C-alpha cells in the first residue's frame, strides 16, 4: 500500500470501527469491548510501518495527501507527517489499546457509547497531528473535545459535570480566539497571494508583520497554553483528571496535553517566529514557574490522581523550557519528553486506576503497606515512578537531561531553577510511594489482590517502552532530528531579521541572562 494512503487509513480506521459498532447490539457488551480493542490494536499495528518507513533524514512532510475538501472556501484535505508529529502519532496509537483494555471491567454502563466515543476520539486525535490545513486542524481539534467531554461527563466521578464543563469552557475560550486568528490568516493570505487557502504550507510562506505576529501568536498560544496546561491556565486539569475514568485520564495525560506543546511548535513557531522570539522570556518564566509550582502543589496532595495531575504541570514545564530554549538538543529533548510524559504519566494513571478499582478510593492516607499484598503491582508502579522522576536508564531521564543540558547554554538561570524541579519530582513521587506502598499493611488493604493477567498485559508494553527509550533513545530521536534542525534554522533567520529591526524580547530586562 502507498504510505500516504496508509496514513489516511490508520487515521480513520478507529472512526470506521466506531461506525461498525453502531450495528452491534448494545447488550453484547463483550463483543463491543472486544471490537473496540481489536480496532485500536489494528490501528496501532498498522501505524508501525509508518514509523519504520518514515525517513528521519528528511525534514520534509512525508506521506502527504492533498485534495480539495470544501473548494468554496479553499479548505483542503491536506495531511502529512514530519518529525514533529511522527512520534506523537505513534504514541497515540500505542496508548489507545492500553486505555481501552484498562476500561475492560471498570466501564459497565453504556459500554457501546463508551467505545464509540473512544474510537472517534482516537481518529480526531490522530487527525490533529497530521492536519496541514488550518480548518482541517480546527475541525479535528474541536472534534476531539466532544468525546472527551462525554468521557468525563458521562463516565466520570461524582463532580463530573463541573469538571467536564470546566474542561470544555477552558478549552473553548482558547480555541475561539484561535479560530479568529485562523480566519485572519486566511484573509491575509488572500490579500497577499489572491488565493483562497487555509493551507499551512502556503500560509507559512507569508511575511507577517511583527505587530500582527504578536496578536496572532497570542491567539494561538492561548489555546495551546490552556491545553498544555501552562501555569496559570492549569486548574481545569486536576478536576478533569480526578473526575475522568482511568482511560480518560490516560488519554488526557498521554496525548491531549501534548497537543498544546505540539501546536505551539507546529503553528506558533513556524508561522510567527519573531513573535516566538519576542515571547520567549514570558514562556520561559511560565514554564519554569510551572515546573516548581506543579511539583510543590503535587507534593501536598492527598489524592493520588490529583498528585499525578499536578505532576503533569511540572513535567510539561520542562517541555516548554526545552522548546523555547531553541537549541537542537533542548528541542529534541522537549519532543522526546512529550513522548516520555505520555508513556510515564499515562502509566501512572493506569496504575492509580488499578488500585482505585480495588479500593474505590485514591486517598493516600487510606493506603499503606500495599507492597506486601501486591508485589507485582509494586514493582511496576515503582518503575513507572522512577521513570517519571527521571532516573537514568529510563525514558524520563533522556528527555529531561537533553532539555536541561541543551537549555543551559542559552538560559543558565532558568535551567538551574528548572533543575531544582528534579529534586521535588523525587520528593512528591517517592513520598507518595512510601505512604501508599510501604509501611505496615493496614487492615483495609489486607484483602487486596495482586494484578491479574489483563493488568499485567497492560503494564508490560509500558515498561518495555520506558526502558527502550531510556537505553536506546536513538530509535526515536533519529526520526525527529532533521525536522528540529530545520525548524531552528528557520527561526534563527527570523530572529536575525528581528535584530536588524532592533526589536527586543518582552521582559528581557528581567532576564539577567
Amino acid at each position: 500500500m502507498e504510505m500516504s494512503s496508509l496514513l489516511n487509513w490508520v487515521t480513520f480506521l478507529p472512526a470506521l470501527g466506531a461506525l461498525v459498532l453502531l450495528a452491534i447490539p448494545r447488550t453484547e457488551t463483550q463483543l463491543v469491548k472486544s471490537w473496540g480493542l481489536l480496532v485500536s490494536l489494528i490501528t496501532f499495528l498498522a501505524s508501525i510501518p509508518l514509523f519504520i518507513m518514515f525517513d528521519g533524514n528528511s525534514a520534509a512532510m512525508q506521506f502527504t495527501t492533498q485534495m480539495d475538501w470544501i473548494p468554496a472556501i479553499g479548505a483542503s484535505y491536506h495531511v502529512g507527517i514530519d518529525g514533529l508529529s511522527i512520534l506523537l502519532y505513534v504514541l497515540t496509537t500505542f496508548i489507545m489499546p492500553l486505555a481501552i483494555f484498562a476500561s475492560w471491567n471498570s466501564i459497565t454502563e453504556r459500554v457501546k457509547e463508551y467505545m464509540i466515543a473512544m474510537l472517534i476520539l482516537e481518529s480526531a486525535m490522530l487527525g490533529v497531528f497530521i492536519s496541514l490545513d488550518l480548518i482541517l486542524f480546527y475541525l479535528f481539534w474541536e472534534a476531539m473535545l466532544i468525546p472527551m467531554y462525554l468521557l468525563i461527563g458521562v463516565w466520570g466521578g461524582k463532580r463530573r459535570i463541573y469538571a467536564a464543563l470546566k474542561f470544555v469552557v477552558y478549552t473553548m475560550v482558547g480555541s475561539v480566539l484561535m479560530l479568529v486568528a485562523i480566519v485572519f490568516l486566511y484573509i491575509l493570505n488572500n490579500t497577499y497571494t489572491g488565493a483562497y487557502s487555509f493551507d499551512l504550507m502556503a500560509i507559512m510562506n507569508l511575511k507577517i508583520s511583527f505587530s500582527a505576529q504578536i496578536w496572532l501568536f497570542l491567539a494561538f498560544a492561548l489555546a495551546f497554553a490552556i491545553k498544555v496546561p501552562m501555569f496559570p491556565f492549569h486548574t481545569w486539569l486536576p478536576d478533569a483528571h480526578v473526575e475522568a475514568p482511568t482511560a480518560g485520564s490516560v488519554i488526557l495525560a498521554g496525548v491531549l496535553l501534548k497537543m498544546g506543546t505540539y501546536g505551539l511548535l507546529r503553528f506558533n513557531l513556524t508561522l510567527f517566529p519573531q513573535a516566538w522570539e519576542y515571547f520567549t522570556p514570558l514562556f520561559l518564566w511560565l514554564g519554569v514557574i510551572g515546573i516548581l509550582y506543579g511539583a510543590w502543589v503535587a507534593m501536598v496532595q492527598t489524592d493520588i490522581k490529583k498528585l499525578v495531575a499536578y505532576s503533569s504541570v511540572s513535567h510539561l514545564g520542562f517541555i516548554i523550557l526545552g522548546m523555547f530554549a531553541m537549541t537542537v538538543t533542548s528541542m529534541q529533548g522537549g519532543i522526546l519528553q512529550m513522548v516520555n510524559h505520555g508513556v510515564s504519566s499515562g502509566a501512572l494513571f493506569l496504575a492509580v486506576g488499578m488500585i482505585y478499582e480495588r479500593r474505590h478510593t485514591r486517598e493516600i492516607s487510606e493506603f499503606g503497606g500495599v507492597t506486601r499484598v501486591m508485589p507485582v503491582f509494586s514493582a511496576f508502579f515503582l518503575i513507572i515512578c522512577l521513570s517519571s522522576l527521571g532516573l537514568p536508564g529510563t525514558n524520563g531521564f533522556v528527555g529531561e537531561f537533553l532539555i536541561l543540558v541543551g537549555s543551559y547554554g542559552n538560559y543558565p538561570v532558568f535551567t538551574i531553577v528548572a533543575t531544582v524541579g528534579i529534586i521535588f519530582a523525587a520528593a512528591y513521587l517517592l513520598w507518595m510511594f512510601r505512604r501508599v506502598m510501604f509501611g505496615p499493611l493496614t487492615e483495609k488493604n489486607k484483602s487486596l489482590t495482586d494484578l491479574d493477567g489483563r493488568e499485567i498485559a497492560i503494564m508490560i508494553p509500558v515498561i518495555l517502552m520506558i526502558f527502550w527509550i531510556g537505553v536506546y533513545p536513538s530509535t526515536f530521536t533519529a526520526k525527529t532530528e532533521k525536522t528540529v534542525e530545520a525548524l531552528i534554522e528557520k527561526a534563527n533567520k527570523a530572529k536575525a531579521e528581528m535584530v536588524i529591526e532592533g526589536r527586543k524580547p518582552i521582559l528581557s530586562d528581567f532576564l539577567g541572562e
Partner: protein
Amino acid sequence: MHDFIWIIPLMPLLGAIINGLFGHILKGKAGFIASVAVLISFLYTVRAFFIVMDGTIIHNELFTWIQAGDFTAGAAVLVDQLSIVMMLVVTGVGFLIHVYSNGYMHGDRTVGKFFSYLNLFLFSMLMLVMGDNLLLLYLGWEGVGVCSYLLIGYFYEKESASKAGLKAFLANRVGDFGFAIGIFIIFSTIGTITYAGIEGQVDKLMAAGVVTSAALLLFMGACGKSAQFPLYIWLPDAMEGPTPVSALIHAATMVTAGVYMVARLSFLFVRSDVAMMVIVIIGTFTALFAATMALVNNDIKRVLAYSTISQLGYMFIGVGVGAFAAGVFHLMTHAFFKALLFLGAGAVMHSLADETDIRKMGNLYGKIKITALTFIMAWLAISGIPPFSGFFSKDEILAHAFLYSPLVWVFGAIGAFLTAFYMSRLVFLTFFGESRVEPEVEKHIHENPPVMTIPLMVLAVLSVVGGLIGIPAGLAYLWGGENHFANFLSPVFANAASYSEPHHISHALEYGLMAASILIALGGIYLAYLMYIKKAMDPDAIANRFSGAYKVLSNKYYVDEGVEAGILNPIVRFSQWLWHFVDTRVIDGFVNSAGKIVWLLSLIARRVQTGYVQHYASVMVVGVILILAYYIFR
C-alpha cells in the same frame, strides 16, 4: 577490542533480571545465582587487571547512548589504572558480601528481591566506575542511589526503614542537582562530556572562568553520595537496611563514589585552588564532626556509620590536597576494614537475635571467636596501628595534609585520636568486659556458619596486609622499595601532578609524623581501655559532668531537627498555601466568577435559544460576515 570487558557489568545486570523476574520461584537459589554472577565479573576484572598492568588502557564503545544536536554520550567504557582498582574493590568485596548474604539473609521471605537489588547495585556501581564520560557516571551515580534507596527500605514494613530510604534518595538528589549543573556547565562550555575531551580542554574551561564553579558543583554531588557535610544526614539512618547492604553500599563502595569522581576528574579539580580548598575544608570538618558523634552512640551500626562518614572525610582531605593516589588508597583499605567491621557487626547481631545496642552486649569474645578476632583486626586497621592497612593509607594522607597546611594535619590527628577511641570503645563494650546480654538471648549465642565467617576471614587478611602494597615511599625507601600503589596509579594523575607543586617531604619529618600518629592511636586506645575495661574513669560520670555537650552529641547536634523545622516544614507549608490559596482561591476563584458572569449573561442570551437550526445558522453567518467585513474594510 577487549569486548569481554562488557561481561563485567552485564553479569550482575543479568543476575538482577533473573532474580527480579524469577526470584519468587528460585527462592534459596537466588543467592547462589547472584553470587556466581558477581564471581564471573570478578574473574573477568582480574583478567582486565593484567591487561591494564601491562600498560594497555581498555576503551570500548558499545553504542551511542544519547545523541541530539551537539550532545553525544556513548555507552562506552574506559578501564585504566584507576577504574581497575575500583572494579577490583567493587567486584571483590562485592563478591564476599554476596557470599555472606547467603547466610545472613537465609530464610528471608523475599530473598530473590534482595539479591536482585544487590546485583543491580553492582551493575550500577560498575557503570559508575567504568564509564568513559560524565553521563555514564551520572547513570551509575543515580543507579546506585536507587538501589541504596531500595535496600535501605528493604524492610519496608518498618516505618523507620522506608523513611530512611526516602531520606537517602532525597539528600542524594540535592547533591545530584549540583552534579547535573556541573555537567551542564562543562558541556555548554566545551561541547563534550567525555573524560578525555574534558582533560584536553581544561584550558578552555579555565579561559571561560568556569572551572571553579563546575568543580564545586560536581563536588556538591560528591557531598551527597559520599555523605559529607551538610548532606551526610542520610547515612546514619541508612543503617536501617540489612547489614550486608551497609557493608557493601554504605561503607565499601557506593559512598566512595564521590572520592572516585574527584580522582577521576583530578585534572579538572587541580586547576581550581578554591575548589580544592573547599574539598579540604569540608573533608576535614566532616572527619572531625562525624567522629564526635560516634563517641557517644550506642548502636553498633550507627557508630560504624559515623565512622564511615569520618573516614570519607579523610579520603577527601587526601584528594583535596592533591594526593589523589593516597585518597584512593585509603578508599581501598577502608573498603576492606569497614566492610569487615560491618559484616562483623552483622555477625554479632545475627548471634544476638538482631540486637544492635552495645549496652546490651559485652564479653562476646569467647563465644564468637572468629567474628571477634576478625573484628579486632579491622579495629586495629582503622585505628592506625602499624602494619595494619589503615595505618599506611591514613598516614599517607596526613603527611600530605601536613604539607598542605599543618592545621589540617592537627585536625586530622585529633580525628585519628577520636577514631581510635570510639572504635576501641565499640570493641571493648562489645567483646570484652562483663556480659550485659539479656539472659534469654544469652542462651542462644552461636558462632555463625562458614558462609558468613569465611568472608570475614578473607577481609581480615586483606585488612591486615592490604596496606603493604602502598607503603609510603619514605618508609619503603629504608629497604630500597617504593610505593607500588601510587606508582601504579601515577599515569592517571600525571596531568594533575603537573599542575600541583611537587611536595617534597623530608624523611625526618615523615618519620616524625608517623611516630606521632602511632602515639595518638595508642593514646586513643588507652583512654578507652581506662574507661571501659579498667574502669579507672567512669564514662557516665564524664557524661554527667559535660551533660550539655553530651546531650548535643547524642542528639547529633540537632541537625535532623533543624532540617525538618528550617527547610522541610516551611516548604510543605508554602506548598499548602500555593494549593489552597493560589490554586483554589485565586485562579479558580477567577475562573468560577468568570463562569458566573457568563451564566448571568446567558440568562439574557437564553432568549435567543429558539431551538431552530436556521436561526442559529443565520446568526452565525451574520457574525462571520461582520468579522470578515471588519478586516476587509478597516
